């Protein structure tokens, strides 16, 4: 008995890999249809921060994620942009991750068309810059000192979207969507230093780490992982990839729990019987 159990325990891990692949592929092919219901406070706070901005306010989005965290963060960014456009906010986009430029392009090509928003009038995409600190500090006194053109080389001075926007004082909110520590930079080097409201969207991995900033209100809100994306999508009532993603993750989550429990129960059994 013991030997059989131990053998079971030393199973080739590739079987486990296969098991996971199956539990994820099946719901993609045939969705289960269990929508996300609960909405966390932190996500609601982001939603409300955007909701209370008057139309025409300038929202700065720092979209710093590359394809490697796209499934989590892209739906989030998309939901945020949709929300901003539906509230007729002006949107400026900056990025400090080279790999994100393609995703930003994709996002605005799609959502811009949905809401009939024009590049240069309703939103502006600024080019990638390598040094995050330098740019953040510079934007506190004059953003044109570092950004003179948009990503296609068009002069940004005089663009309707940037009318009256020069420093953080002219921006109503900064939202940073990232899988890196860039949100920490926004909090420390911009939010706290220049008293700018900063909210964030992060991968589920870094989400618990922002608890202290949320409690102190250094962060106005936080969207965490695919669950957060699904929550935001349901807040703006536009289900997208976040909502369908959560549905697909149901079984896989249970699988992990079952695996941890099984292995530890086997271990107990082997030890005491």
């Amino acid at each position: 008995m013991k030997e059989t159990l131990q053998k079971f325990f030393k199973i080739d891990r590739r079987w486990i890999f296969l098991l996971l692949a199956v539990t994820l592929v099946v719901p993609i092919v045939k969705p289960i249809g269990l929508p996300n219901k609960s909405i966390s406070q932190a996500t609601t706070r982001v939603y409300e921060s955007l909701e209370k901005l008057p139309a025409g306010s300038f929202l700065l989005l720092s979209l710093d994620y590359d394809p490697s965290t796209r499934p989590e963060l892209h739906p989030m960014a998309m939901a945020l942009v949709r929300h901003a456009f539906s509230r007729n906010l002006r949107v400026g986009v900056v990025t400090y991750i080279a790999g994100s430029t393609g995703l930003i392009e994709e996002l605005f090509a799609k959502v811009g068309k949905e809401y009939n928003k024009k590049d240069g009038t309703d939103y502006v995409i600024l080019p990638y810059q390598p040094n995050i600190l330098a740019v953040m500090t510079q934007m506190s006194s004059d953003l044109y000192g570092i950004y003179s053109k948009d990503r296609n080389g068009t002069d940004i001075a005089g663009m309707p979207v940037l009318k009256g926007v020069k420093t953080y004082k002219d921006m109503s909110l900064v939202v940073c969507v990232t899988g890196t520590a860039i949100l920490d930079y926004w909090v420390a080097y911009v939010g706290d230093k220049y008293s700018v409201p900063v909210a964030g969207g992060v991968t589920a991995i870094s989400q618990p780490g922002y608890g202290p900033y949320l409690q102190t209100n250094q962060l106005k809100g936080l969207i965490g992982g695919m669950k957060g994306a699904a929550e935001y999508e349901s807040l703006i009532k536009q289900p997208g990839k976040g909502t369908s993603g959560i549905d697909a993750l149901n079984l896989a989550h249970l699988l992990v729990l079952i695996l941890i429990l099984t292995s530890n129960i086997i271990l107990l059994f082997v030890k005491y019987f």
Partner: protein
Amino acid sequence: MVLDTSIIAGGWLAAGLTIFLFSFLYKDNPFFKIAEHLYLGAGMGWLFQVSVNSVWIPKIWEPVSKGELLVIIPSVMGLLLLTQFIPKISWLSRYGFTFMMGYGSGLAIPAGLSTDFMSQIEGTIRPFSKLASMTPFDIFSSLLVAGGAICVLFYFFFSVEHKGHLKKVSNIGIYFLMIYFGAAFGNTVMARFSLLYGRFDDLFTFSGGSYFYATHIILAAMVVYFVLHGLFAGKKEASEEEAA
């Protein structure tokens, strides 16, 4: 739905590269290695093209050609960084590095003090200023945050030996850390699955008829490869892999 040839070709390429990388899960193989090396090069290539188009041309080339020569100073400092590779004059790179380090450190110190230090103390004690309107459970939670933070800090306190009662305090600290780690673990599970879901979702798209079943065909080809490889490479290697 009829797709453009370039999109179908793209679908095949993406599906192929994705499956090549996943094939590492079965075992290391040449296809994985090719995809991995391609990734290295492509990543660098992307960074290179973005830097050229977003920084070098607009921030250096254009100002210089317009006669704004001041940008030459930082450019030279930047170029000096590259002397690292030439041992004899590698000290020149220090001019660039020290500039970067000085700037970064100077910004980091006050920001760290205010954000991660003072604000955190303030955040811990502020809830108590609303004592009158708090429920007993709120008070308990606020006390837990404050007490927990103190215990964790004490766990990392290296100037005294942790003995007797002090040992107990630092032990309580560990449990707070463990809850935090547990939360992080749970969240990470979700994060990783989401990424996998993203890739599978793409593969599912490419498996459609409009892409001429790219996923199915490439997957089948990989399986055939592994079967053939297993047959020809002999049993010895296979059993070794099993053990891994």
